């Protein structure tokens, strides 16, 4: 019974933890402009994140080594440092976007400008990182984040034409009035939002934090293989809500309140309250994960002591690094830059940086010195290689498309 509860808890937190500000904004933007014609990208992205989260979790459980230790060890200091720089900057962008997301959700709840909520969000995130146990942090934000199911409920209440939604999703075509360049630019953004590299840093470091052993691999696989696809369904529900309400009205999403419009229309104030709770939990959880991820990447590259299972004094540089990252994120927000804009760029840059993390993981997952008999099977490797090609194409195409389309304008 206790074991079953553990499994259920793991799945639920994986669902609630899947959606972050990147998924929220990108899915709503895409739904409001392209309907469900990019739904296939979410499916491709979810399969990809399942594959690589599983692989990095397995590497961490079997060898006890988290992603960035492996990256430095296998790529050497030069390529490793270049990788660290890129990953760290994108992570910082994501931290900024998530803290902005918390503040925007609180603005939606209170009417007080988000700028005034930013310091509050900063202190709350830091306090949790400083004092709260890893498992409690994960479970609480994941479970409360489940309130985002309100998007799926709202979709039913809106009584959409299911046939037309299904045909948009199953026979994707570029809507009239949108160029093919823009379509593919948003395809990459959506792919980057689903497969954000920080999830892999976080997942592998989290496996070390929670002291996974080989016998825990089955449970982690169940969490990932059930939780992430269900999280993907939440992403699709966000896009579908936007497709049903915002697309016909000609509203393209530029603010968080527009993301909430379909939910308000379907369920009124109560639904909005649940939505805000869900958005705060999801962005707060993701702010914790990205802040920790930047600490993890730095500490693992330089060989510092790290981890929330230690007292802060026993992982001093790790904690100093995270304080600096949080302050840097808030400094970026203090310039008045629009957090939604930061989010939109962060998901595209995530897509650009994907090969940097996935290739080393794939190599080490095949290295018997690290993995013993738990190396990748042939089927996993075939799928992983197909994904490597997709990731490389998305990564190479992203910047030209960004320039050609004026970042999807």
């Amino acid at each position, binding site marked *: 019974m206790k074991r079953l509860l553990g499994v259920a808890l793991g799945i639920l937190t994986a669902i609630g933890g899947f959606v972050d500000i990147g998924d929220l904004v990108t899915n709503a933007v895409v739904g409001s402009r392209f309907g469900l014609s990019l739904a296939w990208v979410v499916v491709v992205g979810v399969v990809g994140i399942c594959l690589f989260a599983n692989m990095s979790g397995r590497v961490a459980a079997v*060898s*006890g*080594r988290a992603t960035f*230790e492996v990256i*430095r*060890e296998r790529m*050497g*200091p*030069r390529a*490793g*440092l270049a990788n660290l720089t890129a990953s760290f900057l994108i992570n910082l962008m994501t931290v900024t976007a998530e803290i902005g997301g918390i503040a925007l959700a609180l603005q939606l709840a209170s009417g007080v400008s988000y700028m005034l909520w930013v310091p509050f969000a900063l202190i709350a995130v830091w306090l949790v990182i*400083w*004092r*709260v*146990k*890893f498992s*409690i942090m994960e479970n609480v934000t994941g479970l409360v984040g489940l309130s985002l199911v309100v998007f799926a409920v709202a979709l039913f209440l809106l009584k959409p034409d299911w046939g037309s939604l299904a045909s948009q999703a199953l026979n994707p075509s570029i809507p009239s009035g949108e160029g093919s360049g823009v379509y593919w630019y948003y395809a990459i953004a959506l792919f980057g939002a689903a497969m954000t590299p920080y999830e892999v840093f976080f997942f592998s470091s989290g496996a070390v934090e929670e002291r996974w052993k080989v016998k825990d691999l089955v449970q982690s696989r169940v969490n990932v293989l059930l939780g992430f696809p269900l999280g993907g369904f939440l992403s699709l529900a966000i896009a579908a809500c936007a497709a049903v309400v915002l697309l016909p009205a000609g509203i393209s999403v530029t603010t968080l309140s527009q993301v909430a419009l379909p939910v308000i229309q379907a369920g009124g104030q109560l639904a909005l309250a649940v939505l805000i709770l869900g958005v705060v939990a999801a962005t707060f959880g993701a702010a914790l994960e990205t802040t920790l991820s930047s600490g993890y990447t730095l*500490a*693992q590259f*330089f*060989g*510092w*002591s*790290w981890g*929330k*299972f230690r*007292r*802060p*004094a*026993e992982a*001093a*540089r790790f*904690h*100093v690094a995270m304080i600096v990252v949080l302050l840097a994120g808030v400094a970026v927000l203090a310039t008045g830059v629009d957090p939604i804009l930061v989010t939109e760029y962060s998901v595209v840059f995530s897509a650009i940086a994907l090969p940097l993390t996935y290739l080393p993981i794939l190599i080490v997952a095949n290295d018997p*010195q*690290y993995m013993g008999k738990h190396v990748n099977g042939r089927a996993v490797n075939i799928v992983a290689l197909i994904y490597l090609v997709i990731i490389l194409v998305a990564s190479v195409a992203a910047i030209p498309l960004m320039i050609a389309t004026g970042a999807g304008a």
Partner: protein
Amino acid sequence: MSKAKPIPAQDIKPAPRPAGLVLDAQLHLLDRQILDVDGVPVTTVDDVELSGPAPDEPIPEGAEAPHITGLLTGPVLGTRIFGGRPPSSRFIRIPWDMVAGVDTVVSLGVRANSLDASWVERWMRDQVIAKIPGGRHDPE
């Protein structure tokens, strides 16, 4: 100036297999994580110190093969990436006697706090982290 006579390729004998543990410096040592006896990360391996004749000295016949005398670490990433050689004062040495094992990590038989290599960590702890309330408590 007389040139050394080249040795024909077929006369080069394969190196004799040395006794003891054989490690590939690049593959098994450089950039590996070093953990202390309690499993606490200390640093990474940046260079390896070898015994043997000093550079530019003739090697006497039958001299003992060089062996590892220590692992080197320290703020030397710059020269490792851009080339050149840092002043040797920059290196922090971990004597090879302290190494308890080499696997996917290099494990030491001593505590991190007893090592020079962890002075930055100690400094950050004492000057910054320990001064913030709760810094010495377990997370709850």
